[in-house]
């Protein structure tokens, strides 16, 4: 146990050493952490309650009030504070994005590992299902699924429904990625040895396969979360979100439906979109950097620089053993 602990610590230290020097990665982490902080500390950041209508001296609702009249981001069509909506919206958007991302990662990893490890008819079956799902246009499918299921009255909240539909439909790329990794791992010596001394499938998967694909799963999850947040914002914009708990996408749906654009209420439609870009960009940058560190690829090519090119190329090919 202690030996493994030391190994993990050394790996993390090595990872940190590489990561620290990566500017893209640091920017990504910053974007993600700030949006997480906004979601967590929403009640402290928000000066009002999310449903509260702000009124002027005569008791009339301050609708479409520009910034600085009463707050940093003005009010929406119902006289609610946009900054407050934005902070609470972070909770909804991020919760859906993260949970759907985890669900999709779990399904994708499970299918990828099962297909890659067991091979044979299990692999064929799972990969054909993946192929089929890959070809069906995913956003229209999600739209009709959510629309139909919402009408069924099965007692799912709209937010839970979104998590479920995004998580259960968006796993094909993860499954393929993990499968190909497992396929190559399976042929390695340590797996053959474990099998030779009589280890069962469960043991091999848990102790030998899973720890090896885990870094890939982590990097992929961060990327999937960004996709899930984008997907949610789109579905919510089309009116499939929960109007009582508005996410950033729902806010944009309100803004669009209530003519914020023609009224020039930029403080209403700019911030939610910027927030979505902020978080998505953060996850994308972080995910790409994680993948790059954990799964290194080509570092130069033949047309890159004039001097020393051949020498460098040969050194590299010698180093990589080709």
């Amino acid at each position: 146990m202690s030996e493994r602990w030391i190994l993990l610590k050394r790996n993390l230290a090595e990872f940190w050493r590489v990561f620290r020097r990566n500017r893209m990665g640091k920017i990504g982490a910053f974007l993600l952490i700030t949006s997480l902080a906004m979601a967590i500390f929403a009640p402290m950041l928000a000066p009002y309650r999310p449903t509260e209508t702000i009124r002027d001296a005569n008791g009339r609702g301050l609708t479409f009030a520009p910034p600085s009249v009463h707050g940093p981001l003005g009010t929406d069509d119902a006289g609610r504070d946009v900054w407050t909506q934005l902070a609470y919206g972070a909770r909804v958007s991020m919760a859906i994005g993260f949970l759907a991302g985890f669900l999709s990662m779990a399904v994708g990893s499970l299918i990828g590992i099962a297909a890659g490890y067991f091979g044979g008819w299990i692999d064929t079956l799972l990969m054909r299902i993946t192929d089929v799902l890959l070809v069906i246009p995913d956003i229209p499918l999600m739209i009709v699924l959510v629309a139909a299921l919402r009408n069924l009255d099965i007692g799912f909240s709209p937010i839970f429904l979104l998590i479920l539909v995004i998580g259960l439909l968006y796993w094909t790329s993860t499954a393929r990625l993990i499968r190909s990794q497992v396929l190559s791992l399976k042929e390695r010596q340590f797996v053959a040895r474990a099998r030779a001394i009589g280890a069962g499938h469960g043991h091999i998967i848990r102790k030998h396969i899973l720890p090896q694909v885990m870094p890939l799963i982590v990097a992929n999850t961060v990327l999937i979360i960004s996709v899930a947040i984008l997907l949610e914002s789109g579905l919510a914009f089309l009116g499939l979100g929960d109007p009582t708990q508005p996410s950033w996408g729902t806010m944009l749906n309100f803004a669009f439906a209530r003519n914020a654009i023609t009224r020039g209420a930029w403080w209403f439609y700019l911030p939610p979109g910027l927030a979505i870009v902020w978080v998505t960009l953060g996850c994308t940058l972080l995910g790409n950097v994680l993948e790059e560190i954990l799964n290194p690829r080509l570092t130069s090519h033949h047309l890159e620089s004039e001097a020393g090119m051949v020498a460098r190329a040969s050194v590299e090919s010698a180093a990589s053993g080709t």
Partner: protein
Amino acid sequence: MSRRDYLLRKVLLALITLSVVVTIDFVLFRVLPGDPVRAVIGRGVRISKEQQDALRAQFGLDQPVFPDQFVATVGQWLQGNLGFSWTLRRPVGEILMSKLGNTLLLISAGQVLSIILGVGLGLFAGWKRKTRIDVASLTFSLVAWSVPTFWLGIILLAIGSTWLGLPTGGFVEPKNIGKPFFEVLPDVLRHLILPTLTYTVVYLGEYMLIMRSSVLEVLGEDYILTAKAKGLSHWQVLRRHALKNAMLPIVTLIALNLGFTVAGAIYIETVFSYDGLGQLFQQALDKKDFPLLQGAFLLLAVTVILANMLADFIYTTLDPRVRQV
């Protein structure tokens, strides 16, 4: 595996996918609560129990759901009969067909522009790897990828209609509705500018990224070194050896992206109130016009599946390695 076997497998996959889509589409909308007969005759219209039963029998709703209703419905779909819209009170197939052209116009304009620009810029960025140009184009792709399509549309709409005097939406000006297409072409094009721009920006980033990484991979191959050693200039190497090979993943991406493209049409047409399939889809969703939603989804899915199959066919003729797997 010969090329014929490969293509046969692709056709089989397409057939399986089609049947999955048809089944989902049938089941989803068949289990919905609400009485289709009631919806078709409209609210507030009083008809007798016998008339209702007669209508129900006419729609086949007195039969068991499976297999009778399923077989009957799929049979009708195959004949192009997609049901009757609850809100527009016209056959769904007819409505869809009237919007198809507009959407194709928008999608093809956006795709052609983003592919040409994406391939060009991706090639350039891969060639000038790690220079300022490369970093700039990479940053652009990452940001473009993170921007929700509909929000970009909203921003461009706000900018374009306030400062550039472009139309705020629609396919043509209201006074031009119903006139022959070629007579109002300038007006159509004016309305196309902002939606096409949104489309191009959204998809450009992805094409550029894929092209760039594909170019990087190709430029690492030994035949590039050979070509360079022969004394060809960079430009000649890029044009004769790199471009063609690096284009292959783009072909697959175009096919894989079709589903994505269709989703883009839903968002962009909604924002710009562009009179096409995407806006129709959104309106059907908004008004809970389920036959229309069902038909629109069927049309979108079937088109994407068939286009994917077509792309596989094209791919095998382009890539000699696939030709003789």
